[in-house]
């Protein structure tokens, strides 16, 4: 601002940063990779050899059981007792039951269509075709027509809920569970941080007891005890009671995950939003939650995966989800001795769905890191 500094104008040396050199070349090629990753030192070399030996012993038998010696065609007599290969015919035969339970055959197009819509929705989500707002709206809207397709009514023949089962039931319970328990969990988390003592007490009073008991207990209470406390005439069916139990349980956990995210938001963010004249709800919905939820994406996805797997517990209150149908199928007298195939198939389905969720979560995190 004032007079030029004393050194200006004199014959100064001109500083030029020296050009950057390329980074030292890594060891490349197949041999190099092997050396750095498998044989860098005697300790790792021994491990590599042991691991190779282990794989040599285990992979070929698994391959021959699952593929080479497996039975792919025929009827129940195609795989006699004591046969060494996997009997995939059994799975093909039971496929419909595993997918939709006892859903009546002449209405089968309805769960198939519903499944198609669901898969399309999942693809739209993974491929990021829609912006987040529309995507969230879709996830909350689509379950309504899907429910209508499955349950019937309004022009479609009603299909009793006792006939629903298999993967359809697992996915239904898990999807509705996540869709309702996440917003509920967010509200509980916000309530737990509220300055208003009553709201805080209510939220703690919901979260802590629910988190303190196993899901089985909650399902059992929802299924067996809740009818005893409901007023006479108010009859909530078993499936809905179980769904409510799952939602409550999941919401309590989601709430604690979200609370962790809320704690990571610096107080300065609240100060800034307040100082601009924004009220509590706008600050929370537009400044705090978007940041807090991004912080906890990995844990939230973890909760979704856990919830999906937890739905297998509904078997204890008489609902036959995918795992329930697997157990039931394995006991079919016509197909005895095929528990292994049934459980492997069940595990594969669960793994595909859970792994996809986990990969999707990972890609969300990466997107966040890029911003």
């Amino acid at each position: 601002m004032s007079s030029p500094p004393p050194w200006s104008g004199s014959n100064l040396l001109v500083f030029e940063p020296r050009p950057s050199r390329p980074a030292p070349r890594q060891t490349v090629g197949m041999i190099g990779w092997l050396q750095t990753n498998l044989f860098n030192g005697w300790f790792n070399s021994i491990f590599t050899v042991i691991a190779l030996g282990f794989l040599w012993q285990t992979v070929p038998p698994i391959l021959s059981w699952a593929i080479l010696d497996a039975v792919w065609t025929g009827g129940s007599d195609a795989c006699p007792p004591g046969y060494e290969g996997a009997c995939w015919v059994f799975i093909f035969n039971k496929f419909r039951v595993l997918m939709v339970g006892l859903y009546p055959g002449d209405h089968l197009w309805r769960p198939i269509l519903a499944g198609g819509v669901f898969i399309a929705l999942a693809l739209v989500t993974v491929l990021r075709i829609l912006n987040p707002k529309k995507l969230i709206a879709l996830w909350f809207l689509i379950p309504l027509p899907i429910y209508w397709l499955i349950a019937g009514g309004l022009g479609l023949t009603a299909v009793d809920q006792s006939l629903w089962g298999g993967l359809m039931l697992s996915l239904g319970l898990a999807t509705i569970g996540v869709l309702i328990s996440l917003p509920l969990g967010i509200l509980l988390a916000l309530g737990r941080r509220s300055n208003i003592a009553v709201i805080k007490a209510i939220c703690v009073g919901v979260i802590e007891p629910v988190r303190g008991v196993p899901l089985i207990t909650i399902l059992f209470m929802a299924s067996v005890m809740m009818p005893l406390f409901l007023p006479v005439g108010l009859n909530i069916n078993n499936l809905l009671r179980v769904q409510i139990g799952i939602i409550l349980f999941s919401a309590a956990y989601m709430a604690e995950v979200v609370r962790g995210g809320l704690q990571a938001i610096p107080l300065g963010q609240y100060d800034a939003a307040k100082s601009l004249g924004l009220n509590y709800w706008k600050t929370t919905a537009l400044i705090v939650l978007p940041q807090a939820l991004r912080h906890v994406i990995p844990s939230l996805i973890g909760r979704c995966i856990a919830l999906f797997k937890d739905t297998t517990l509904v078997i204890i209150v008489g609902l036959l989800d995918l795992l329930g149908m697997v157990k039931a199928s394995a006991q079919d007298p016509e197909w005895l001795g095929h528990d292994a195939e049934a459980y492997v198939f069940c595990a594969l389905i669960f793994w595909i769905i859970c792994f996809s969720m986990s990969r999707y979560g990972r890609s969300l995190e990466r997107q966040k890191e890029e911003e």
Partner: protein
Amino acid sequence: MVSKDIMIQMIDVNKWYGNFHVLKDINLTVHKGERIVICGPSGSGKSTLIRCINRLEEHQEGRIIIDGTELTKNLKNIEKIRSEVGMVFQSFNLFPHLTILQNLTFAPIWARRMPRAEAEKIAIKHLERVRIPEQADKFPGQLSGGQQQRVAIARALCMNPKIMLFDEPTSALDPEMIKEVLDVMVELANEGITMVCVSHEMGFAKTVANRVVFMDGGEIVEENEPNEFFNNPRWDRTQLFLSQILS
């Protein structure tokens, strides 16, 4: 006096954190267009004082009247006053999940219900004023500290505030970035906006302040126009403080 309109009036304001008496009988009047610099050692209550002006902190005794409206528990009043009092923080507090442009248009759109196009036009105008229009589509994390603080100033200006509060705006900046922020603040001061600034930048105080307020132990020790304040401090405490920061 620059003008007879009183923008900020604090009368016998007291505040405690638990048992700690952080503001003691504060009386301060700021007129329209005045520029006040508040200084003092850390823990003297200067940040608390400035945060009481838009009720980021609640005072327990006394009255605070902003442009004719008294700060009470009435939430609507508080939100209205806040939207007319801009604030710039030591740690910028930009919204990291929004772009620079979205940071600037956020409050006009959501607190004032301004149409997006209009809000963006105003935002660009203020970004040009703080000389970083080319950063509009970046995220705060991609900017230097000095740039972030200039964005924060622009964000506050987008609400067209009657009063600007600055809470140690340059304390978190690297030395080479302090000047770019102070330059923007000097320009603002020259445009005649009412400013209250907690700062240790004595050069800034000398150039733009109408009055310098010195605080210690939760009290206003002395208050004077800058020349008198720096050349003839009345209290030993002020003298000691000045000797520490000017040496």
